[in-house]
């Protein structure tokens, strides 16, 4: 981070009003659509042409306790857990190798793990779905896990590479000099130091999988439904209240992550964004 010095106009009433006005505009633009989700989720009756719902109530929130909401939630959590575990198992050694070793083809490997970010995903997922039909993976949980792994590995590999790069290699060299094997130095030095980064990476991947829509819709249909797909189905059926409740629930993990990152893990996270 370069030296940031902040200066501005002299303090005064005008400055205060300016700040308040900007805050109000930003709040309306950003929070307005999110607030309308809350209004919709509570609207029991809202006829066209009326600027405001005629009757408010918690009826649609009560529907959350029913099976058709809990089932996609459970499926989504199960898929996200599997995706996170698999992505970390693969990304840990890969990230370590990409950060430490200058092997030929290193740039190519990094590039392969960026492509899903750069190219439109939908046609690729459509193609994957067709292949999955052949292997009996379409419409199954393993199929959805596999399609989530494509995007999840991008996050996992890049954050793990950044995390291991931030750990000074001298620490492990010291361990080697004292007679530790490469494996021992990795397990005893690099891995414990990387724990905060691994947690950040796991959170990102978990959240990605929980929110993933496109791949789940294509590969999972019609048997595997997660919350984003459930929300889409509700919205297509003009059950806008149900979709709004689901949308609010889907924002919870993102909000938690935002607060966690702001408080604890900011530097690593921004380093990741800076690199991509």
């Amino acid at each position, binding site marked *: 981070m370069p*030296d*940031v010095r*902040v*200066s501005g106009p002299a303090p005064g009433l005008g*400055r205060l009003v300016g*700040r308040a006005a*900007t*805050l109000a505009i*930003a*709040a309306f*633009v*950003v*929070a307005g*659509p*999110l607030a*309308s*989700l809350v209004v919709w989720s509570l609207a029991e009756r*809202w006829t*066209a042409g009326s*600027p405001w719902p005629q009757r408010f109530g918690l009826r649609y929130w009560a529907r959350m306790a029913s099976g058709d909401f809990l089932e996609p939630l459970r499926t989504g959590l199960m898929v996200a857990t599997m995706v996170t575990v698999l992505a970390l198992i693969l990304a840990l050694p890969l990230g370590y190798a990409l950060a430490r070793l200058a092997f030929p083809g290193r*740039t190519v490997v*990094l*590039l*392969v793990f960026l*492509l*899903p970010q*750069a*190219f*439109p*995903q*939908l*046609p*690729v997922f*459509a*193609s*994957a779905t067709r*292949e999955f039909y052949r292997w009996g993976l379409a419409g199954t949980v393993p199929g959805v896990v596999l399609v989530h792994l*494509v995007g999840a*590995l991008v996050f996992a590999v890049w954050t793990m590479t950044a995390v291991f790069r931030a750990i000074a290699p001298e620490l492990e060299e010291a361990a080697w000099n004292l007679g530790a094997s490469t494996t021992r130095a990795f397990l005893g030095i690099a891995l414990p130091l990387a724990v905060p980064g691994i947690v950040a990476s796991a959170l990102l991947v978990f959240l990605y999988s929980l*929110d993933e*829509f*496109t791949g789940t819709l*294509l590969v999972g249909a019609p048997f595997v439904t997660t919350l*984003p797909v459930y*929300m*889409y189905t509700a*919205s297509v059926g003009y059950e*806008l209240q149900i*979709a*709004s409740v689901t*949308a609010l629930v*889907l*924002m919870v993990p*993102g*909000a938690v*992550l*935002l607060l966690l990152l702001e408080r604890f893990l900011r530097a690593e996270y921004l380093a990741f*964004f800076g*690199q*991509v």
Partner: protein
Amino acid sequence: MFLWPLAASVAASFTRDGALTLANYETVRRLYAVDVAYTVGVAAAGTALTFAVAIPACGWLRARAFGPVEFLLKVPLFVPFVVVGHALRVFMSPYVPGFSSSWGGIAVALAWKHLGLAVLLLLGAFRSVDESYLEAARNFGAGTGRVTRDVLVPMAASSLAVSGILIFSSMLASFSIPLMMGRGGGPQMLMIDVYYRFGQHGDFATASALGVVAYLLAMGAALVYVRRLTAGRHA
């Protein structure tokens, strides 16, 4: 996992009934030329709108750090695409019926989602402009607006271009936002066409040809990533 389906879709786009052909592209041209133009137009409008908000906002924040506004503007980064589509649909539809599924509605929703990324990238670029340039401009009486336009934007031009390409490509390839905004009549976004061509018509060959058109349009983003990567190797 990604490369293989990618290659399979490129291969499928050139074959029909087992023979090598350009017929799929002919179908794309005949049925979807308007949609390609429409998609590029919506993505361009969305990108322009994102910057129209992000540039003044970041210039303002560069002059005075103000946490609450900065925090608010980054919130869209953490809202899932599907949720954005639905939220903007229900936000607009009671007051401006029919707008959410129009090109303007889709562009607004895309701009809302990408505002977080744009602010993150631009604020970083603006903050790395040395303070002395800003002081010099202010000594000549320039206000925040002038400083942003005449100092910050020109000095951060390359970062602006890179963010513009990334955001534009992401908008081209957006699927869940237009899908959630609802289907009006008239032209559709490219990814919606791919989805219906594949899912409802079962026409994988034409869907793939549409996909290849999208890959080519998004090539700018891929090139940006490649250049960053090769630059990073020498650093």
